[in-house]
């Protein structure tokens, strides 16, 4: 880590080539100045709550700031757009009407701020220092955010839906977002690949010399993410667009150089990286120590939190497979002392039992699935069953296992006393069982 942390000590070469970039100190064009004032205002206004989120003990400030924008957004919706229904539940994700209104409000305020700034500040001809100052938080906010997203995928705790109940459902039952989650949940390797691209791009942002490479990687990755979010109805469209905007902001100053390098075929100069204020002796050592501690602390806590989350997920899933991923075929169904034979026409004759977390699902008649909310006692000796919707408690079934593959349930549900004997079915899911194949004599897409 010491090597990339060190900033270039040697002086910048003195223009060895013919192409002369604008000498430092010369002014920006008026259009660039106006654009910068707007972009500066917008980025600060939009990203402030996310930046505050990384500062401990000031949660109240962040809440107050976000509350202010929500009030403004609701006002805008009510009085300008005459909207009546604007749900504000945070569980609804990041693309609700209120969030779009909030974005509009931030853009409007940023335009106003840019205009006011232009009117009041007529002497300044450039904003190099301010630009450099804004790049610093932009790099760190985007870096921490993308590192976090990368680690969720590398440690596989974001896309985790492809387990027992989901495998039983049909494609048509999925929502578009559910399809994306199912797709991503299938391949651990693909998650590591996409997550690593995000995490590596993020880490490169922590050093000024590698920021350009990091920004290039993240622009590619985030363009793909934004495209997916708009194509599969994912509810972080606004936020992902803003992350892409941050990456483009970091890339922007290097675009002319990149164009020279790749398209215009001109010689290029190194970029002008102004020296830091604390750039010699102890001051530099102190700055680098603070930086290492700061980055190290966040990368450590973010990774630790992800690992902890993953442990919880693994544990829950193991339980689910052990207990609830069990499918039983009903061999004998005795109701009120009378055996009931299996019949497609009888919707009350249970045919299959699926034990899931919090649910006892029963397949009846011609394949209809009834899902009863259920609670399992410790050691799974009894199941308490509720009516759908958890309205009334139907009763308690006692479980016994004569041998490893058989299950006997007895008890009273509603007005019927039941005695059920069932045997365990081995679950085979070709999606889970297929595995990796170097050779495919024919495409396997059944």
């Amino acid at each position, binding site marked *: 880590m010491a090597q990339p942390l060190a900033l*270039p000590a040697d002086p910048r*070469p*003195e223009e060895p*080539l013919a192409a002369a970039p604008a000498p430092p100190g010369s002014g920006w064009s008026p259009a660039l100045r106006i654009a910068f004032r707007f972009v500066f205002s917008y980025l600060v206004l939009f990203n402030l709550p996310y930046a505050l989120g990384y500062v401990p003990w000031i949660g109240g400030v962040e809440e107050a700031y976000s509350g202010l924008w929500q009030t403004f957004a609701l006002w805008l919706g009510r009085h300008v757009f005459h909207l009546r229904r*604007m749900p504000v539940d945070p569980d*609804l*994700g990041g*693309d*609700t*009407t209120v969030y779009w209104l909030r974005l509009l409000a931030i853009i409007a305020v940023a335009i106003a701020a840019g205009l006011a700034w232009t009117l009041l500040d007529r002497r300044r001809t450039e904003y190099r220092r301010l630009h450099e100052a804004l790049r610093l938080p932009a790099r760190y906010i985007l870096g921490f955010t993308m590192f976090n997203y990368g680690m969720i995928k590398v440690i596989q705790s974001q896309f985790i839906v492809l387990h027992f109940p*989901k*495998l039983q*459902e*049909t*494609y*048509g*039952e*999925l*929502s*578009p977002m*559910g399809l*994306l*989650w*199912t*797709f991503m949940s299938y*391949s651990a*390797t*693909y998650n590591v*690949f*996409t997550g690593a691209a995000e995490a590596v791009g993020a880490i490169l942002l922590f050093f000024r*010399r590698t920021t*350009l490479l990091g920004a*290039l990687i993240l622009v590619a990755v985030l363009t*793909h993410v934004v*495209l*997916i979010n*708009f*194509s*599969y*109805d994912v509810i972080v*469209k606004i936020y992902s667009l803003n992350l892409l905007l941050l990456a483009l902001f970091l890339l922007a100053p290097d675009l002319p150089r*990149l164009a*020279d*390098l*790749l*398209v215009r*075929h001109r*010689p*290029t100069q190194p970029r002008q990286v102004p020296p830091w204020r604390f750039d010699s002796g102890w001051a530099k050592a102190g700055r680098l120590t603070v930086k290492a501690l700061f980055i190290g602390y966040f990368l450590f806590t973010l990774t630790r939190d992800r690992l902890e989350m993953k442990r919880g997920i693994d544990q829950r899933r193991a339980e689910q497979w052990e207990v609830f991923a069990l499918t039983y075929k009903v061999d004998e169904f005795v109701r009120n002392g009378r055996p009931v034979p299996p019949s497609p026409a009888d919707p009350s004759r249970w045919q299959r039992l699926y034990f899931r977390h919090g649910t006892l699902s029963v397949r009846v008649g011609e394949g209809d699935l009834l899902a009863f909310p259920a609670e399992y006692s410790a050691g799974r000796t009894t199941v308490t069953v509720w009516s759908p919707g958890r309205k009334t408690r139907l009763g308690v079934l006692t479980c016994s296992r004569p041998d490893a593959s058989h299950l006997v349930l007895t008890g009273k549900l509603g007005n019927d006393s039941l005695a059920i004997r069932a045997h365990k079915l081995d679950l085979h*899911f*070709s*999606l889970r069982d297929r595995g*990796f*194949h170097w050779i*495919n*004599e024919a*495409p*396997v*897409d*059944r």
Partner: protein
Amino acid sequence: MAEPIRAPEPWQDRRQPARRLGFRFLFSYLLLYGFELALAGLPGTGWLQALWLGIWKVAVSWVGRHVLHLGGGGQEIATVATGSGDRTFDYVQVLSMLALAALAALAWTALDRRRREERDRRLYEGLRIFVRYTLALTLLAYGMSNVFKVQFPFPAAERLQERIGDSSPLALFKVFMGYSATYTFSIGASELLAGLLLLFRRTTTLGALVTLGILVNEVALAFCYDVPVKLLSSHLLLMTLFLLAPEARRLVDGIVLDRPTLPEAVAPPFSGCYRTGRLALKALVVGSALLATTERNLELAKELRRRPPLADPSKYLLVTHGIHVIEDSPINR
């Protein structure tokens, strides 16, 4: 560090015998592997493709039987086309091509001991042109089939009624890709863009970088979702890296190491000779390939449109939910 370092021209670097041998191997291998791919996009070359395939069927069967001793009990390597690019046949063919290229490189080096720089340069430049066009035409063909939504059509009713656990990883991939017209169109458009950039010398490096971004993802998908294009996508990636290799130093200098760089040489390598003829040939090759692939994809798209519509679309949440830019009641299930 102050002076930009001019990378040695690739053909000059081949003074050492090992590098020379390496180049000759690469030359032979890329030509052998790319031949079929380059022809695939060109109309009117059907007979040549059939001939080439016929030769390889005989050769692969022979190698399978006598060299690799595959399929005991008189069982031959299946040569029938199944739509998979990762059959035993394809692996044996790649292996045979590698061996053939190695033999060719050895024989070439044994027979041809004089150093002729101009000829080496021309061979290298010729190979670059071949790889650029092969890669570009392949990307254009894939791009077209995605833009016209032919490669991954919307999943059929049988698929929507199928249990997720009962499908295969490739089927899951196809449902995912097939669902979104926006997504496949954008992927196709980026493939078209990359292919077009590769067609011109001045935009080749940019095109190769765009191609790299696309192909790294496609190789990962091929390996993770059992998509039977593992060999093809890996070879396309290899070709992209071949195109980028001479620029690698400039790119690293300019993007990472913060050094000054000199422009790459983008002048035509065969200056002066038959400029009009070359341009006409280029227009003919690219034009006819684009025309052929557009026509084929339009035909396929028309066929897909004849597919009966979903009988009861309201049954499927995946169909009814749709895409909401403003989303006040999200469903992730």
